[in-house]
């Protein structure tokens, strides 16, 4: 009887050890999958946005007393690339100083005409459209830019400016 109990305890400990080993194997497989996923993500990032072609566009709103954006469209060399519609919450965030990443594009090195059109309303509630077209030069380094919507006190209006980071 005692022998039977001993054998039982021994078998149970064996099963327990086996379970632990399986759990450890599962954990290591999970870690390997996570590592692989990280590698893939990094590769994807490098493939999609290498430094030589990466162009990032951001937008900010300075005060916003004379202009409230409702939508924005960015085109490069005449081709519409990015568009965005604003909600009230997003405009509040912009007013509080948020920097909105409009998006990343792949641009070949060289000169490009970048046009930004922002539609919105002025301080009298009238529909207004602000636009800017700039010729930007893409080098082998990433191009990181910011469009600033700034108030123009003298004309009680607003305008868009382009800033390079």
């Amino acid at each position, binding site marked *: 009887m005692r022998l039977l109990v001993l054998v039982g305890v021994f078998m149970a400990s064996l099963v327990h050890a086996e379970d632990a080993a399986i759990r450890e194997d599962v954990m290591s497989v999970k870690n390997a999958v996570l590592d692989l996923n990280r590698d893939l993500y990094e590769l994807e990032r490098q493939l999609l946005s290498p430094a030589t072609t990466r162009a990032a566009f951001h937008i900010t709103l300075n005060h916003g007393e004379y202009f409230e954006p409702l939508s924005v469209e960015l085109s490069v060399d005449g081709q519409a690339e990015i568009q965005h*519609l604003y909600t009230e919450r997003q405009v509040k965030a912009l007013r509080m100083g948020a920097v909105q990443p409009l998006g990343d594009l792949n641009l070949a090195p060289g000169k490009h005409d970048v046009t930004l059109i922002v539609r919105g309303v002025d301080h009298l509630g009238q529909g207004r459209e602000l636009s800017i077209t700039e010729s930007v030069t893409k080098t082998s380094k990433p191009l990181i830019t910011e469009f600033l919507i700034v108030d123009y006190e003298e004309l009680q209006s607003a305008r868009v400016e382009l800033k390079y980071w």
Partner: protein
Amino acid sequence: MGNVSRWTSVMLMLFLSSFSANASAEEERGAALKPGDMVPDFTMPATNGFGQRLAEARGSFLMLIWLGRCDECSERLVRYQLLAESMALEGMKGWFVWTPRGDDRPPKMRLPVLEYDKKWRQSWLFEDRPAVMLINADGRLDHLITGDLKDNYKETEQVVMRWISQGRDYQLSE
């Protein structure tokens, strides 16, 4: 050699994943929604103020009213507007979605009137219009009432009342 095959497989994977993502997005938007489905996110401009994004309405009950042909059809929508406003204290929002045709002018309402325009890639159109969608706080479609808005008002009102009180009971029991 190993590197080359790895890059090739990664490129292939990226291509396939982008293709399938596009295809599934199109399918998701084109498919007819039915109660129980998650409602795909959208952002649409409004004819009377800021644009609205569905994801930002999470946490509230939403009555989304897809209009059929509507040329300044404010009168037809007043009862729906009152219903939404009377339920505002219960946490319900109401939005209209208007699709312009020809020289149609949008209805003048106090609630947001979203304008569908396919140029905005963040938006999608529900085909079976007119329709009323009741979307719960998790973004799931609880009720879908299709057909003429005038004919369906009574039914919509009853369903909304029941829906809101059930939602309130559920929140209390949690």
